[in-house]
C-alpha cells in the first residue's frame, strides 16, 4: 500500500514537471515565433501590412475589446470591404482578442502573421495542401533550390479574398497590317 502511494506521488510529481515545461514552452514560443515552418528550402514573403500599422498593440494595448459587428472607425476601409463570409464572421474569429499582434486558430493557438496560411488552411484545407506542394499560389526563386513562397494574403486580401480583376496588357499587333 505504501509502495503504491509512493508511486502515485512520483507520477503526480512527474506530470507536474512536464506540464510546467509545456507552459514555459508556450510562453517562449509566444515571444519568439522564429521557427515559422519546417518546409525545407522555402522562404515565406512578409504579410502585406499597410505602412506603420504593425504592431497592432501600439493602439490596441489599452483598448476595451468590443466583439460586436459594427462600422469600424479607424479600420473603416476594412469594414467597408469586408466580405469574407460576412454573415458568420467578424474580427475576433481570426484576430486574437487579447493580443492583437497575433492571429488565433480555432483551437486557441496563437499564430504569427507570417504563419497566416495556417489560419486560412483551417477552412481552405485543399488550398493549403496544394500551396504546400507548390500547385496553388505563386513561388519565385530557384526551381532547384531556394524558393520564395507568397502567402495567401499576398494575393487574396483576407478581408475580401476574391482575386481582383486586372487591366490586360495590349493585344498583339495584327500581323500583315503594318507593311512587313
Amino acid at each position, binding site marked *: 500500500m505504501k509502495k503504491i502511494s509512493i508511486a502515485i506521488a512520483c507520477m503526480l510529481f512527474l506530470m507536474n514537471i512536464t506540464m510546467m515545461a509545456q507552459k514555459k514552452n508556450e510562453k517562449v514560443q509566444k515571444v519568439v515565433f522564429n521557427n515559422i515552418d519546417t518546409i525545407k528550402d522555402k522562404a515565406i514573403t512578409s504579410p502585406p501590412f499597410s505602412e506603420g500599422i504593425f504592431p497592432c498593440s501600439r493602439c490596441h494595448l489599452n483598448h476595451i475589446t468590443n466583439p460586436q459587428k459594427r462600422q469600424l472607425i479607424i479600420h473603416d476601409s476594412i469594414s467597408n470591404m469586408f466580405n469574407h463570409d460576412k454573415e458568420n464572421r467578424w474580427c475576433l474569429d481570426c484576430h486574437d482578442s487579447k493580443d492583437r499582434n497575433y492571429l488565433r486558430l480555432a483551437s486557441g493557438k496563437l499564430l504569427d502573421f507570417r504563419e497566416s496560411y495556417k489560419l486560412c488552411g483551417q477552412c481552405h484545407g485543399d488550398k493549403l495542401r496544394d500551396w504546400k506542394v507548390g500547385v496553388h499560389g505563386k513561388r519565385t526563386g*530557384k526551381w532547384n533550390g531556394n524558393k520564395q513562397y507568397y502567402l495567401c494574403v499576398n494575393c487574396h486580401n483576407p478581408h475580401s479574398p476574391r482575386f481582383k480583376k486586372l487591366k490586360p496588357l495590349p493585344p498583339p499587333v495584327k500581323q500583315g497590317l503594318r507593311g512587313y
Partner: protein
Amino acid sequence: MQQENNAKKSRRDFIKKLSIVTAGTLALASCNSPGFDEFLQGNFKTLSKKEIDKIIKNLEKKYSTKYGKEFKVSAKPAIDGTLFGYALDLSRCIGCRRCVYACVGENNQSRDPQIHWIEVLQMNKEKGIDFSEANAQYNPDLVPEEGHFYLPTSCQQCRHPQCTTVCPTKATWQEPDGIVVVDYNWCIGCRYCMAACPYGARHFNWAEPNIPDEEINPETHYLGNRPRIKGVVEKCTFCIQRSREGKYPACVEICPVGARKFGNLLDPESEIRYILENKRVLILKSELNTQPKFYYFFGV
C-alpha cells in the same frame, strides 16, 4: 594525246577555280575579322570549347559596342539529370498578358516589327478548347471576362519536335535538357520549321529586330535571348539563360495568379511531377504525337 588533253583541262579548271577563290577571299577580307570568323563558324554542336569561348568573346564585344552596355553571353550546357517541363493552370489564368511582355523584355524580342513568343488565346467556356473559336485580340477593360477562359500558348517543347527534323541546315535541335533551341548563326531563314510546327510557336524576323537600347537585357545565352538578326527564326527556350542557372523562367515569376509552374521532370519531388501525378492534365494536339513537355492542367 589523251594525257595531254587531261592536263590541259585540269590547268584550265585550276585557273578558273583560282579566280573564284581570289574573288571570294577579297570579298571576305573587306569584312572585319570577327565578321570573317562568324562567316566561317561551324555548327554550334560541332564546336570545341575553345572555339565557343572565342565566339562568345567576339559576340559580347559586338553587342556591348552596339547597345552601349556590358553584355554577358553564356554558353552554359544542360545540367545533368534535368528534363525541363512546364505546366499551366487553365483554371487560374486570367488572360492579363503580363507573361507576354515579361517574356518580350527578358528575351529581347523585337518591338517593331513585333514578335511575341507567348500568345494568350481567349476561349469560349461553352466551346471548350477550340482553336477555331479562339481570339488573341481580346482587349476589355478588365479580365477575366464572363463566359471566357484563357489559354496561353508558346513553344510546347516537344519530345518529338517536327521543327527540328525539317531543318535543312540542322540549325535547330533539342538539347539534352529538352529545350528546343536555334543557332541563329546557322539559320538560313527558310522557315520550314515554322511550317512544320503545329503550334505556331516559331517566329521570323522579317526585318532587322528593333529594341530600345535602354530596354535590352544584357544577360543572355547563345542559344536563347542574345540579339537576333534579320532573317532568322526564334522561339521560346524556357528562358534558357535563367533556367540553366536554376531560376524560374520570366513568365513564371511575373504571373500574378501563380498559374505557371516549371521544374525538372526527372525529379520526383518537383512541383511539376506532383501536378502530373495528381491533377487533371492535358496536352495540345495530342493526336500529332509531338509529345509536348508543356502541360495544361486544372488546379481545381
